């Protein structure tokens, strides 16, 4: 399985990965419309740039082999996709207990804006092109897909 790899030494902290991620998961899929017209139902970025001083890197779900979020999910909303091996979230089954948020060792599961369910969970952009858009749009190849 190909994974998004992080190259902290070349992350320039521009946050373009976050912007691309939001656009890709937005209702319109158009950047200006997403940010100017879809404020209410604009999704949260599923990748987050962590920064301190000159250290920065873009972090998203690592799709752990023994994923605590899957193990701890009460409703089975968090599950491993058999075909891709990725950890995904079935939002219809999520009841917003935040077990995943608490147990994720990387802190990459986030609550949705209305705090009713998981709102930020990298889905690997399966079926959205060969390379995930966050990787494709990283200006410095600080994210690679290998």
């Amino acid at each position, binding site marked *: 399985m190909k994974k998004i790899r992080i*190259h902290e*030494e*070349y*992350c*320039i*902290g*521009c*946050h*373009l990965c976050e*912007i*691309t991620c939001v656009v890709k998961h937005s209702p319109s899929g158009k*950047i*200006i419309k*997403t*940010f*100017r017209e879809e404020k209410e139902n604009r999704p949260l970025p599923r990748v987050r740039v962590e920064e301190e*001083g*000159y250290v920065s890197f873009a972090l998203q779900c690592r799709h752990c082999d023994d994923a605590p979020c899957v193990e701890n999910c009460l409703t089975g909303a968090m599950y491993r996709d058999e075909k891709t091996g990725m950890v995904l979230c079935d939002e219809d089954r999520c009841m917003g207990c935040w077990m995943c948020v608490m147990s994720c060792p990387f802190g990459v599961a986030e609550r949705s804006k209305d705090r009713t369910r998981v709102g930020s969970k990298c889905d690997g952009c399966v079926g959205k092109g060969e390379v995930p858009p966050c990787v494709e*749009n990283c*200006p*410095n*190849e*600080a994210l690679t897909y290998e």
Partner: protein
Amino acid sequence: MAKSLLLPEFKIERDSARCIACQVCARQCANAVHTYDETDDSLWSEEAQCVGCQRCVTLCPTGALEVRRRERGFRENANWEESFLYRLYKQAETGGIVLTGMGCDRPYPIYWDHLLLNASQVTNPSIDPLREPIEIRTFLGRKEAWLDVDWEHRSLKTVLAPQLELSLPVLFSAMSYGSISYNAFRSLAEAAREVGTLCNSGEGGLHPDFYALGGNIIVQVASGRFGVTPEYLQVARAIEIKIGQGAKPGIGGHLPGEKVTPEISRTRRIPVGSDAISPAPHHDIYSIEDLERLIFAIKETTNYQKPVSVKIAAVHNVAAIASGAVRAGADIIAIDGIRGGTGAAPQVIRDNVGIPAEIALAQVDERLRQEGIRHRASIVIAGGIRSSSDVIKAVALGADAVYIGTAALLALGCHLCQKCYTGRCNWGIATQDPILTKRLNPQIGKRRLVNLMRAWALEMKEILGGMGINAIESLRGNREQLRAVGLRREEAQLLGVKLAGEGW
């Protein structure tokens, strides 16, 4: 504090219909031009600090930004051009020498643009590089006038002087680690290895990380002698004595202490935070015979296994100086013209001292031929080479190869804002700030340089094939392949070329 009279050089236009307040611009500007206002989710740009590097424009995901040269609205005056006013106000405010970066930008004649190339028609078939080999392999170093050969056994008796073998007649110019970032230097060195050419350490020593790439590095010995050790000389492919630089002939160098990080301190062998000052002259070279002593000291140290280059700036008497350097034992003469780049130089020097590389090259090549010593040294020309056609024209004028500095930096992302000396290069090239240096991913930098060299090599082969020439040595010094347009007869004569319209 009195109000500054310096008006902003650039105008920033933000298309509010497009701006999504994502703050990429604010995060990327090292000059703090753009600031985000949380209260109304908007961005404000302070134009006075803008250097026109186009970093924000390039990264803006919606194309909302435009940075343009500002029309400053001074009354038109042919004598008092805007740049003079700007510089004068600056000096009146600071009382200092105005610094700048990169090469001279004054509109002196660019002779490359007045030289046209030949092509074959009918009487001489042009050669298709897709079907026939066209060779641009180049050797730098002292050549013999003739060879002693045992023809019966097909074996060579002459021992050739050490040669630098290049896959194309282009090398990366001297740019020190210090003036450029670690990642920029790594990009150059790795690209040189992949392409089969050489880069140049500049006068800042060689970081031990790059010793493994020494086979593709020319190291410099300059007036400051930074980082010069026996090991430094031995790991390199060749050694260059830097006498002068086209951007600042007769002027030394100064790397401010802020840039002397622990790694640079280790490389240059000077204390962290101390200014690295290269004196204007070498204080052990006050005459040509002193140069000879240094050349041979280096040759002795390296057991005569490495060519020694002498780099000089193109000044009025360049032909005689080059001839002297060749007679003093230089295997390569590097000549840097007035448009040669720099990380920092006084603007008054950069823009007024020296002569164009093209004229210097033509004169040096002719002089060495007249003296019958052209074979004793290769000529490498530097200073404003912009394209493969410039390379071809340089070779036809008589150069063995060219150095590219600015062109290589452009490939790495440089946008020629001329602010290298500030240490705030937004493209991560001319800076040591760790936030900025990580902006240049050496894998990308190397790839772009390799691409550039590949593209130039392909173009050079097309041009050569069109001329009906299948080996670059048949173009070297072949001024019959050049014709001058828009030049006075005297200028054409100095270049040793005929005017367009004149046949063979």
